[in-house]
């Protein structure tokens, strides 16, 4: 079998639901696609803790502080697990971190925005994590088995984050008018980025990530699933979703909504969001400040060898 026949039979196998392990032969385009996908996911977990981290010191109770710290630890842990998966595809972790800090690789749009009140912590943990879990659940079927397995563990932990976020939101919604207004205000600011988060609809016949079953559901399908579950849960609290066009179209069997601002999405993920550069700079400084830890660990191993 020559390489192109080998590749054809590989693609036929993954399209039919076959699974790929790290040491299996795979065509270069598949390897590049899965690496790019997992690396972007890892970057997003790592950068995603920064908005929430800003609130650890300001959490209103000790229990909230513990829960938020634990969530931040989980998300950094997700980044570590995912960089591990990505490393086995051939790109060293140090290179991935460097590319992230140099702005050569991306992270999810929602982590480029500021947080303005404690209600943002609730809205992020509830709805940003919910939008993420909808796509992560679909990734448990990924053709790349090490990624799919990691996603099972991650989804299990994400379900705790969503409960934590929903609990924060419910507590505020049962509070004073001012607290309720904070939640509404946070939702008003986060709704646009949430609607952009899954990305513009793609043509399923041309989306390689779908054809190769790196992911099993398209962008629009994920957004529709998110809306079906969460619009009723948001509205039952008396919150107003800031989109006059949003309604379920019974005839079409889908949610109708105002076109998300795809220009904003493109600009934000390429490093032009309101907090993109500040957050990357935080990571750069942090990396320099913690270099001694890595040196000590490597030094210890070198001394033992």
């Amino acid at each position: 079998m020559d390489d192109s026949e080998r590749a054809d039979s590989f693609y036929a196998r993954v399209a039919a639901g076959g699974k790929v392990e790290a040491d299996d032969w795979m065509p270069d385009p598949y390897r590049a696609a899965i690496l790019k996908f997992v690396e972007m996911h890892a970057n997003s977990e790592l950068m995603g803790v920064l908005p929430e981290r800003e609130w650890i010191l300001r959490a209103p109770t000790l229990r909230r502080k513990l829960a938020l710290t634990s969530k931040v630890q989980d998300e950094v842990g997700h980044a570590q697990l995912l960089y591990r998966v990505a490393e086995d595809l051939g790109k060293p972790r140090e290179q991935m971190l460097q590319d992230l800090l140099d702005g050569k690789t991306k992270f999810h749009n929602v982590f480029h925005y500021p947080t303005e009140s404690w209600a943002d912590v609730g809205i992020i943990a509830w709805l940003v994590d919910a939008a993420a879990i909808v796509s992560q659940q679909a990734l448990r079927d990924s053709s790349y088995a090490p990624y799919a397995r990691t996603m099972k563990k991650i989804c299990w932990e994400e379900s705790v984050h969503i409960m934590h976020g929903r609990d924060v939101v419910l507590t505020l919604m049962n509070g004073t008018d001012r607290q309720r207004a904070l939640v509404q205000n946070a939702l008003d600011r986060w709704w646009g980025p949430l609607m952009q988060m899954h990305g513009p609809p793609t043509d399923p016949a041309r989306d390689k990530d779908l054809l190769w079953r790196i992911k099993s559901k398209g962008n629009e399908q994920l957004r529709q699933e998110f809306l079906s579950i969460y619009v009723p849960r948001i509205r039952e609290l008396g919150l107003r979703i800031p989109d006059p066009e949003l309604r379920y179209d019974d005839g079409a069997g889908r949610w109708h909504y105002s076109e998300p601002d795809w220009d904003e999405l493109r600009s934000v993920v390429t490093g032009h969001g309101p907090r993109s550069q500040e957050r990357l700079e935080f990571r750069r400084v942090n990396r320099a400040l913690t270099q001694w830890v890595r040196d000590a660990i490597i030094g210890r191993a070198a001394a033992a060898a």
Partner: protein
Amino acid sequence: MTDSVWEVFRQEDEGDAMTHAGSVRAPDAELALHYAREFYGRRQESTRLWVVPREAINELDDPDWLKPPFDRSYKRPGGYLIKHKLEAAKARAEESP
């Protein structure tokens, strides 16, 4: 970089089988166990962890050996369909005591 990859196995409850959980990168076994504890045991979800250097694992995944195309049903309980034979045998036992 002197880090290497360690495969992590975890036991959920006492007496359960050790199952593969994932992997960590660490310079030695002691740190590998610390990382494994953080990733696979911080929610009290494990009673025991193993870390094994990845190079220590010998793999066999050759289908000619593991999934040969011969009928191996005689090796499994489901390979023996006894329902009708049992009925027939019982019927005969009643006919001729």
